[in-house]
């Protein structure tokens, strides 16, 4: 794409930081915006039209409506509008994907009967995507349309969950770590054992989602999410239970540890990197660290359910997202870790601070410490969930 900074993104930046000056930037964006988009659009079209297709895809232009079901606030302002202009498709965008298990519970009946679920593209977390793949409910993503697939991070391309990424296209990834209030702790936090420090009694929170809560604890005890055993899980659960019983753990949270951290009710929390980026903007005392022994990462992936009404449009979307310049806009807004490689340049063009932020653009050394969860079997999922629920729900 061009070397200019998108004025619309500037306007967005300004309005997010302070509203002063936002008006002027917005006005500028209005004037410059459409012409910039047209330039983008032209380039996009030529890219997708020129590639040769695999036998399954007839290579014809995608038309019509695309229905997307995504997590809340996982989308940058203006991104959808830009996509619509660039491709001529209309997008019906819903933010109704709030929790993997709950989404599954609601949609598994219609899916099992091959009934339309109201979305042509969904964004489940990887473990859920594996499950959907295992059930045969996912459509292959045509490589002929997904020309930007090569931009994907190498470590994600051959994940155990979907080798070669035939059915899933990673959308955002994130790091699980420990968020803490440096001023309140009085020291830096470096390892999982710091969670159990009696000095923080009653001011610690863990995540209630099994994979996210247990991941780093498992690793700290010598296990690995890439190869989990029931004994390892039980050992981690027992340690957590022990600490819960003596009042060390205040709460088990979903993403709602954020307000407790901000208010000072919690001093050390298991947290997602993206949330901490947001919190740091208002409270620089908050720090984020990946535990010494390592931690797990999560990947949210785009997936096309086999009940989709517009396969080609969904693939166009995926391809559009995988363009580094487009993706940079998403990263700048969502502030999670890119699934595309070499984003530093594009990010620098939009927001140099984001490019420098290790939570948004982590160095390889950080990425090396992260392990993704292996796709679990039915029995494992039930057993592990039950074990953890006994601590969190009881």
């Amino acid at each position: 794409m061009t070397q200019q900074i998108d004025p619309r993104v500037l306007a967005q930046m300004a309005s997010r930081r302070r509203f002063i000056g936002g008006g002027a930037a917005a006005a500028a964006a209005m004037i410059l915006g459409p012409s910039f988009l047209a330039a983008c659009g032209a380039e996009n079209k030529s890219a997708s039209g020129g590639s040769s297709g695999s036998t399954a895809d007839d290579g014809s232009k995608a038309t019509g409506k695309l229905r997307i079901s995504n997590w809340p606030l996982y989308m940058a302002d203006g991104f959808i509008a830009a996509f619509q202009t660039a491709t001529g498709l209309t997008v019906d965008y819903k933010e109704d994907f709030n929790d993997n298990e709950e989404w599954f519970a609601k949609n598994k009946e219609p899916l099992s009967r091959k009934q339309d679920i109201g979305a042509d593209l969904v964004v489940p977390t990887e473990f859920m995507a594996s499950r959907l793949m295992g059930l045969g409910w996912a459509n292959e993503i045509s490589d002929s349309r997904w020309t930007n697939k090569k931009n994907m991070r190498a470590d994600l391309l051959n994940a155990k969950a979907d080798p070669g990424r035939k059915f899933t296209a990673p959308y955002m990834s994130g790091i699980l770590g420990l968020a803490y209030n440096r001023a309140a702790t009085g020291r830096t936090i470096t390892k999982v054992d710091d969670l159990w420090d009696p000095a923080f009694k009653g001011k610690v929170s863990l995540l209630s989602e099994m994979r996210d809560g247990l991941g780093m604890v498992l690793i700290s005890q010598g296990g690995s999410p890439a190869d989990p055993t029931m004994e390892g899980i039980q050992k981690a659960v027992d340690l957590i239970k022990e600490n819960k019983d003596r009042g060390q753990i205040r709460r088990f949270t979903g993403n709602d540890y954020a307000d407790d951290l901000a208010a000072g009710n919690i001093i050390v929390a298991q947290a997602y990197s993206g949330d901490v980026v947001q919190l740091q903007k208002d409270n620089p005392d908050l720090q984020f660290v990946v535990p010494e022994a390592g931690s797990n990462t999560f990947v949210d992936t785009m997936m096309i359910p086999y009940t989709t009404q517009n396969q080609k449009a969904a693939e166009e979307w995926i391809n559009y997202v995988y363009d580094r310049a487009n993706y940079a806009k998403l990263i700048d807004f969502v502030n999670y870790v890119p699934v595309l490689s070499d984003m530093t340049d594009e990010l620098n063009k939009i927001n140099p601070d984001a490019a420098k932020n290790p939570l948004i653009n982590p160095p390889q050394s950080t990425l090396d410490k992260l392990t993704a969860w292996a796709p679990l079997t039915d029995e494992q999922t039930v057993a592990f969930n039950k074990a953890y629920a006994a601590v969190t729900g009881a």
Partner: protein
Amino acid sequence: MSTQAVTSLSRPGRNFLGTFKLGDLALRALAGLVLLFLFVPILVIIVFSFNSPAGKFNYTWQGFTLENWAHPFKYPALTSALKLSLNVAAVSTAIALILGSLVAIALVRQRFRGSKAIDTFLVLPLTSPEVVMGASLLTLFLSMGWATGYVTILIAHVAFEISFIAMTVRARIRGFDWTLEDASMDLGASPVRTFFKVTLPLIVPGIVAAAMLSFALSLDDFIITYFVSGSTVTYPLYVNAATKAAVPPQINVLATAILLISLVLLAFGTLYRRKRIET
């Protein structure tokens, strides 16, 4: 049926005004405190609608801004969720009002066989935990092959509202002087006329109270709606999701706006009634 007269009665041999005053003051003070208690979080919400957080969360005070109020509809998902909730609340209340009031009237006026059983039956939905109602309704819809969405949300809301309305109206109209109805019909009015000219006006206050309650319940409902909404997002569902991702101040703005509108309507209603009494 007001009882203001009591306080102004003076009786020989007792210093009513004296003893009344102290207890009276304490009572009013206490009532005022409770009212304050009700409003404290509301004040916080209003104040935070003017907050200008740099990040996506609106939990700590960062600074004053009118920006949020300038762009209340910045998040289209939030706005449409709100519109949907208002719509569902209005429609479901209307339906449930008719169904529920009819039952309430019938139960109070006519002691027919089985009315006791119906009594108990009506209470049952209120004793069920919302999780249970939600999950069981979802199973029903799925087994009948109905797509979850607006209609199923509506159905679920009417289901739990009927009981509330029936109970509220019943409590209100119990003890009314039903001989008025007989009197009306003695004077030659048809049952239908009687109903609309005599019965209905008498029970309208009860119905209004029930309607307001039902509307608020529907607007607020989270658990049951959650199960049967499919991919449709209502206002509480949006808020719940937001606490997990980002809490834009616009949520506070819109909530405050609803409050203000309700307040204005309330004021109008009071003034209108005052005028009617005066003329």
